[in-house]
C-alpha cells in the first residue's frame, strides 16, 4: 500500500476533479447506493446487535461487582457511536464492498474493458471510480447511523435480561441520554466518512492496477481488503487524537 501512496493520492485528486460531472452519472450512483446500502443493511444490523450485546456481557458483571452498573448505558452508548460502530462497520464494508469493487474493476482491467473505455475517450476515473466513491462515502455513514441505535438496543437487552447485570431498559437508556451527546454521534459519522473514502480509493486503485488474469484479480481483492482494514485502524487512531484535541 505505502509504495503506491503517490498513485492513490493522484487517483483521489482525479476523483475530486471529476466531482462537478457527478450529476450526469447520478443513475450509476443510485445503482451503487442500492448495492452498497441495501446489500449490507441486514448484515450491519445483525453485527451491531451482537457487538452491543457482547460489550454489555463483558463489561456488565465487572461494573456490577464495583457497584457502578448505572454507567453501563453511557459507556456502551459512547463506545458504540464513537468507536465500535464506525470501525466495525467500516471493516465489514471493506470486506463486502471493497472486495467487490476491486474484483469488478480488476476484471474490467484484465478483460480490456477499461482499455475500451479509454479508446472511446471515456475517462475510467469519472465513469467507474467517481460513482463508487460517492456511493460508499454516502452509504457508510448511513449504515453507521443504523448501526449505533441497534448496538445500543443489543446492549440494553443483555443488560436487562442477564441476571448478573440486571440493569433495566429504562435505566440503561436514561444513563445513555445523560452521557451521549449529538456531537458524539457526529464524531462517529465523521470517522465513517473518512473510512469510506479510504476503502473506496484503495479498492478502486487496486482494481485499476490489476494485472495477470484471474490470479491477479484474486491478489487485488486480497490486497484491497487487507490494506483497507490496516488503513482504517491507522486512521482511527489519528482521527481519535484529532477529535479529542478539537473537543477540548
Amino acid at each position, binding site marked *: 500500500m505505502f509504495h503506491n501512496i503517490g498513485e492513490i493520492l493522484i487517483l483521489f485528486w482525479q476523483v475530486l476533479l471529476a466531482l462537478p460531472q457527478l450529476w450526469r452519472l447520478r443513475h450509476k450512483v443510485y445503482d451503487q447506493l442500492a448495492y452498497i446500502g441495501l446489500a449490507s443493511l441486514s448484515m450491519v444490523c445483525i453485527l451491531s446487535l451482537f457487538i452491543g450485546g457482547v460489550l454489555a456481557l463483558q463489561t456488565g458483571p465487572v461494573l456490577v461487582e464495583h457497584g457502578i452498573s448505572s454507567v453501563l448505558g453511557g459507556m456502551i452508548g459512547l463506545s458504540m457511536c464513537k468507536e465500535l460502530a464506525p470501525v466495525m462497520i467500516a471493516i465489514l464494508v471493506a470486506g463486502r464492498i471493497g472486495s467487490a469493487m476491486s474484483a469488478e474493476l480488476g476484471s474490467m482491467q484484465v478483460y480490456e474493458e477499461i*482499455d475500451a473505455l479509454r*479508446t472511446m*475517450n471515456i475517462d475510467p476515473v469519472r465513469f467507474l471510480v467517481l460513482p463508487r466513491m460517492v456511493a460508499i462515502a454516502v452509504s457508510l455513514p448511513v449504515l453507521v447511523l443504523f448501526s449505533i441505535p441497534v448496538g445500543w438496543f443489543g446492549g440494553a437487552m443483555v443488560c436487562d435480561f442477564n441476571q448478573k447485570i440486571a440493569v433495566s431498559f429504562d435505566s440503561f437508556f436514561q444513563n445513555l441520554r445523560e452521557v451521549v451527546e449529538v456531537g458524539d454521534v457526529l464524531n462517529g459519522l465523521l470517522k465513517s466518512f473518512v473510512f469510506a473514502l479510504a476503502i473506496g480509493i484503495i479498492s478502486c486503485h487496486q482494481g485499476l492496477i490489476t494485472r495477470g488474469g484471474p490470479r491477479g484479480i484474486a491478489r487485488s481483492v486480497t490486497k484491497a481488503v487487507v490494506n483497507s482494514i490496516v488503513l482504517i485502524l491507522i486512521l482511527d487512531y489519528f482521527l481519535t487524537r484529532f477529535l479529542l484535541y478539537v473537543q477540548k
Partner: protein
Amino acid sequence: MTPPAQPQGVTVEVRDLRKSFRAVEVLKGISFQVSRGERFVIMGPSGSGKSVLLKTIIGLLRPDAGEILIESQSIQNRAVRNQYRMAMVFQSGALLNSMTVGENVGLYLAEHGLKAPAEIDVIVARVLESVGLKGLENRAPSELSGGMQKRVAIARALVVEPQLVLFDEPTSELDPLMAVTVGEEILRLNERTGATSILVTHDRELAFATAHRIAMINEGRILFIGTAQEVQRSTDPIVQRFIRAELATPKTQ
C-alpha cells in the same frame, strides 16, 4: 485490390517505434505508412509485438521512442489525437459486461452527449441491424456467442464513425464460418465508411482476403511489407514458414 474511392479515412505513419517492458524490447524500431482508406494487415507469430503495436497506435501505451503521425501530425499530443475519430475492436470484444448490448453500442454517443437518448436508440438499432444483430439491444453481452460479441464490438466501433479502426485478432477463437462473417463485416465497414483499417491477425485467410497490403512482423521488427501476392512470393524464409505453416499429417503405409 485498390483502396475505396473518396475515403474519409486518415493517413497513418509509424516512424521507428520502440517499446520495452522492463528489460524486454518488444518493438525494435517499427516503421510503416498506411494511406487513407487502406486495409493494412499486420501478421506475425505470437509474441512478435503485434498487439503492443496496436495499443501504442491507439494511445493505450506510450512509446519509448519513435513517432506516430496521423495526417502528418504527431499524435503524442492528446489535443491532436482527439481531432481524429479512432476506434479499436479488441481481441476479446471488451464489451462492458455490466451493460446491455444496446448500452455498449451507444456508450460513446451517450457519454459524450452527442445525441439525445431517443436518437441514440435509433442509431443503435440501425447499427446492430447492419451487423446482423437486429433486436438484441437488451441482451447482456454474456448471453451472446463469441462471434456475436465481436460483431457487437464492430457495431460499437461503427457508432464512432471512425476515421481509423484498429482490429486486434478479430477472428481468433471463432469457428471458420463465424470468422468469415466477421471478415465480411470488416470489409463492409471499410467500404461503407472509407475508414483506414489496421488489422492484427494470425488468420492467413482473413489477411489475404481483406488486405490491401500486409506487413509481416517478427520479434519486434518488420520483415516484409507488400500485397498479398507479394507476401506469397516473398523469399524470406520466416515469411514463407509463417504463411505456409501446416500441420503435418502422418504418412500411412
